[in-house]
């Protein structure tokens, strides 16, 4: 059984003419690292909120279909069960803070404390999250005085302290400088193997470091689902999101008729060297 399953989800916001999600179906397994790529206004945040169980909410309901985890639709989950199962981190860092903690330490401890866990376990979870997100030196700071990138790491740490089975990140690297982004990707890579991580991104390079399975979300549907090579070489993906710098260079060589027939375009620098050698030999 899939861990999270979206079945024929058709959703539009009240008063909107066009649907945001147009009969979308997709499934995620435990331990998967998935990147869902999409241009702006393609429905990334909406889908992320459905996956995280934040929808349906009040008047925001699906016209058709539903999302379930472990075969149980979200409305059947209690708030505590859902919070312990899945965590969502949105893209505006200051909006990810609870507004109920005076220090970074307290912000991370807020969720585990709400689950009424023993104090020792709360402390252990907070220490672990502080270490993973490189926030130990900021533990006593006021969360609202941190920079955007630090707040981003804090909101992810607070989500990790809930020890969810699924972590959903909406453009997690958008507020990070290149160095912090690479550190962050390395930290995410070190997360427990059993944790399912679903990342919604517009940027191609960080996605390559974060995920093994790629999808392209366009006009409310998953247009293509597969390996990075399949998805990033898809014409619609190139049209809406462009290419990585390495792939762009190889693409230009191919356009000039000097790329070997059948040789895939490299996506990362690590793969590029061999590909360019082969291209040079041809």
């Amino acid at each position, binding site marked *: 059984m899939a861990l999270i399953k979206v079945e024929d989800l058709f959703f539009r916001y009240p008063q909107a003419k066009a649907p945001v999600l147009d009969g979308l179906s997709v499934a995620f397994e435990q331990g998967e690292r998935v990147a869902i790529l999409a241009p702006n206004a393609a429905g990334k945040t909406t889908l992320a*909120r459905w996956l*995280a169980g*934040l929808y349906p909410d009040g008047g925001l309901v699906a016209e058709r279909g539903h999302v379930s985890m472990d075969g149980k639709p979200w409305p059947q989950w*209690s*708030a*505590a069960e*859902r*919070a*312990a199962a899945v*965590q*969502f981190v*949105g893209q*505006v860092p*200051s*909006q*990810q*803070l*609870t*507004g*109920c*903690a*005076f*220090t970074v*330490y*307290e912000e991370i*401890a*807020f*969720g*585990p*404390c*709400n*689950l*009424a*866990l*023993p*104090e020792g376990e*709360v*402390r252990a979870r907070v220490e672990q999250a502080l270490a993973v997100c490189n926030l130990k030196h900021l*533990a*006593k*700071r*006021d*969360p*609202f*005085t941190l920079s955007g990138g630090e707040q981003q790491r804090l909101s992810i740490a*607070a*989500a990790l302290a*809930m020890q969810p089975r699924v972590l959903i990140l909406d453009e997690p690297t958008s507020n990070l400088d290149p160095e912090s982004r690479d550190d962050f990707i390395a930290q995410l890579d070190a997360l427990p193997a059993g944790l399912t991580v679903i990342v919604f991104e517009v940027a191609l390079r960080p996605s390559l470091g974060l995920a093994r399975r790629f999808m392209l979300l366009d006009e409310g549907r998953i247009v293509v689902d597969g390996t990075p090579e399949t998805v990033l070489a898809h014409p619609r993906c190139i049209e809406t999101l462009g290419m990585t710098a390495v792939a762009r260079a190889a693409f230009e060589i191919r356009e000039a008729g000097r790329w070997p027939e059948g040789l895939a375009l490299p996506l990362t620098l690590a793969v590029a060297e061999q590909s360019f050698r082969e291209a040079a030999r041809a």
Partner: protein
Amino acid sequence: MSSRSGPQSGQTALLFLPGDSLLHRANPLTSLIFMLWMISAAAVLPTIGTTILIVAGVALSFAMGVGPRVTKRLVITMLPLLVALLVVHGFLVSRPDFIPLVGPLTYSPTGLEYAAQVVTRIGAMLTASLIFVTTTHPGDILKSLDQRGVSPGVSYLIASPLLLIEPFSERAKAIRDAQRARGLDLTSTFKARFKALPALLIPLITLALSDLDHRASILNSRAFRAQKHRTVIDAPPDDRFQVWLRRVLIVLAIAQLGIPLLWR
């Protein structure tokens, strides 16, 4: 982590001054009940009593190491009020006991007496509140409430206004700068500034309302109120003496307020 909120534990502590005095070390609930007892005393004491209460309160604040901050805030707040009340009740409000002072100027002794009574009463209440907020970190109050099993919703109502002041004022500055960059006149006449107010307030309110939705969503995903009680980490220490002291202060406060009512 330290057992109590200290100087480094976040910067959102408003008037709190770190220290190691008796009130700093006291359980926040004890300090809170002490403040309520002082306020109840101020509500019923005559002018001389409330004046003594202010003097005693200021002396106590110096003993606790927060004297300068308490005194400064007390003076800044009370001085304009004192002047306004003395002028209004002593010289302007019509009373039967008006006495000539200088030239056409007359004053009322009962009006001045009344103004003094109101000012010292408010002053004593303010002194009590200032002693409390300068010696008790807001974070410790919340932990103390959580420890007593008070609903997390109540704690949130207390904490969030304190915590959100900073981001709210930052946003207000950003909106002001953005509107000025678009040509909004905020430096010329009072009329021009008044006309500019909607352009500043509307986005501020709209964004604040939008934030509410996000905040609710985050609280929901962090299991806020999912359980009846929360775990309290770094709970402020308490002991039997303080428990009994609080009980005595509560009885005293009720008696202070109740006896005059019954007497009437």
